[in-house]
């Protein structure tokens, strides 16, 4: 029985002379809320891109539920239950919130290409069922009132919610969030924390990058800290917070950012 485990071993990703991810290993276990933190440019997003198939790491292994997924295309990886959001929100901007969420139903829908030309009673039923799934997500993320609104006319905080709703429409096993609190105000961040807890309750494992230290320390079960692409520490939030290497590398540079 394959468990919902994500295991990265010695993953290295280079861009020309720059080693963005350097010999990185970590393991996300079933049901965890797992955090990746590190200063700007540390290579966090690049790690996510290597997991989700946007980049292929030059070296190492990415193993999900006992299967090597390094080198697979993004849609093949989605098909295995891993879905992500983006640090820079990437919605289908001219399309409505409901249509954006419907994109998450793509791989779940049983329709074939020819149903786009000639529908059948079965394909029409499938269409209806998937719209009802969209409705569930609209309700879960409290987006009902924006269902018909084009996403590019919505405020940032709501766009982030739409992106998460779109990912959840896939019914993933592992949800990957790249800085989900970036650009949110305090109230929205609180709402986000609650939502992430609720998502975990549904049995979804969550892997997230976050810059907001308070939030990371509160929400995650386990953390990996990276700097210059390398792991410098790992542990529970309390352990990591007490680690001098982390304080120097991460919190130090954070102070500089704030000035």
């Amino acid at each position, binding site marked *: 029985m394959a468990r919902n485990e994500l295991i990265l071993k010695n993953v290295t990703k280079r861009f020309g002379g720059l080693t963005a991810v350097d010999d990185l290993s970590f393991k996300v276990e079933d049901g965890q809320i797992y955090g990746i933190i590190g200063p700007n440019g540390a290579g966090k997003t690049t790690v996510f891109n290597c997991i989700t198939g*946007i980049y292929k790491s030059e070296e190492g292994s990415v193993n999900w539920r006992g299967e090597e997924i390094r080198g697979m295309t993004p849609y093949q990886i989605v098909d295995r239950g891993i879905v992500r959001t983006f640090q820079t929100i990437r919605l289908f901007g001219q399309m409505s919130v409901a249509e954006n969420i419907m994109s998450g139903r793509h791989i779940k829908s049983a329709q074939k290409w020819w149903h786009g030309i000639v529908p059948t009673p079965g394909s029409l039923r499938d269409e209806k069922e998937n719209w009802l799934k969209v409705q569930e997500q609209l309700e879960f993320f409290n987006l009902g009132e924006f269902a018909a609104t084009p996403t590019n006319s919505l405020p940032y905080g709501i766009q982030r919610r739409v992106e998460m709703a779109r*990912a959840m429409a896939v019914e993933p096993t592992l949800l990957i969030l790249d800085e989900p609190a970036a650009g949110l105000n305090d109230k929205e961040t609180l709402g986000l924390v609650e939502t992430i807890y609720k998502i975990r309750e549904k049995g979804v494992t969550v892997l997230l990058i976050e810059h907001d230290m308070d939030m990371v320390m509160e929400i995650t079960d386990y953390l990996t800290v990276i700097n210059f692409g390398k792991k410098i520490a790992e542990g529970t939030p309390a352990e990591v917070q007490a680690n001098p290497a982390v304080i120097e590398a991460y919190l130090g540079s954070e102070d500089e950012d704030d000035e």
Partner: protein
Amino acid sequence: MNNYQRIVFPLFVVVMAVLPTLLNPRWQAVAITFLIFSVVALSQDIVLGKAGMFNMGQALFFGMGAYITAILNYKFGWPILATIPLAILLPALFGIILAGPIVHLRGDYLLVVTIGFNIVFVQVLQNNLGGVTGGPNGIFGLDSLSLFGAKLTSQLAVYYFAFAVLLLTLWVMRNLEKSKAGRALHYLREDQLAAESIGINTRIYKVFAFGLGAGISGLAVTVYATQYAAVSPEAFEFIVSVLFFSIVLVGGSSIPGVMLGVFVMFVVPEIFREFATWRYFVFGFAMILAMILRPRGIWPATFGKIPKYLIKGGSHGA
């Protein structure tokens, strides 16, 4: 949207159904051209408008459909209607084969490759490859339509044939809009990386768009071949592809927009006959102005076609 479905569309169908009986033969011919080229433009809209692929070689696919009808009828004696399945399937197959290796190319590269295909195609026709294309003169003297042995020689018959083809195309376009495949095209046009990251195999759907566009255009020109009883290479030059490309961009990727573009390009010049040679001049200016003033086209695509039960009160336009 509702007004469109409930009033505008039925009205359009009724008007188009009685129209030819009110027209003299010259205007009937213009109306037939409008119908055929509307279908061709809609087929280009699937590739360029919906999927956002810069296909500058659509004339290749409808040219192929026209030649298949012409060759099968003239050389092999098939009735015109019997050629239709192949006039759809062969261009569609060719579209799929040609698109397979090129759809990953970025817009500008794809543009150049499809122009190349179009130019090669016309050269093949002109050089009478395999001795079946008739060289620079093309093929003359096709049969007229016949149904169950009865010859339908009148222009009226061709008109209703063309009208039926347009209605069929509109039906397919509507089915596409309400399907997984049709939405996939919109998603990949809006943001390809996001589409892949949500589980869409974008390559398959791009090839699908090319194949479907090619098949529909192949059907359209069967009517064209019937109307003129002839086909020749210059009708499928690369400049013709440019025309349909522009019609979709200027009109906007919507059914009324595309048909408006066809109307301006092919019907308006007939109204102002003395200015007919100015058609490219007028259309050129329309292209320039539309792209500056309305970059998404005169009548852009509308989204938000979602089931009513998802829409809560006062939700529009936030």
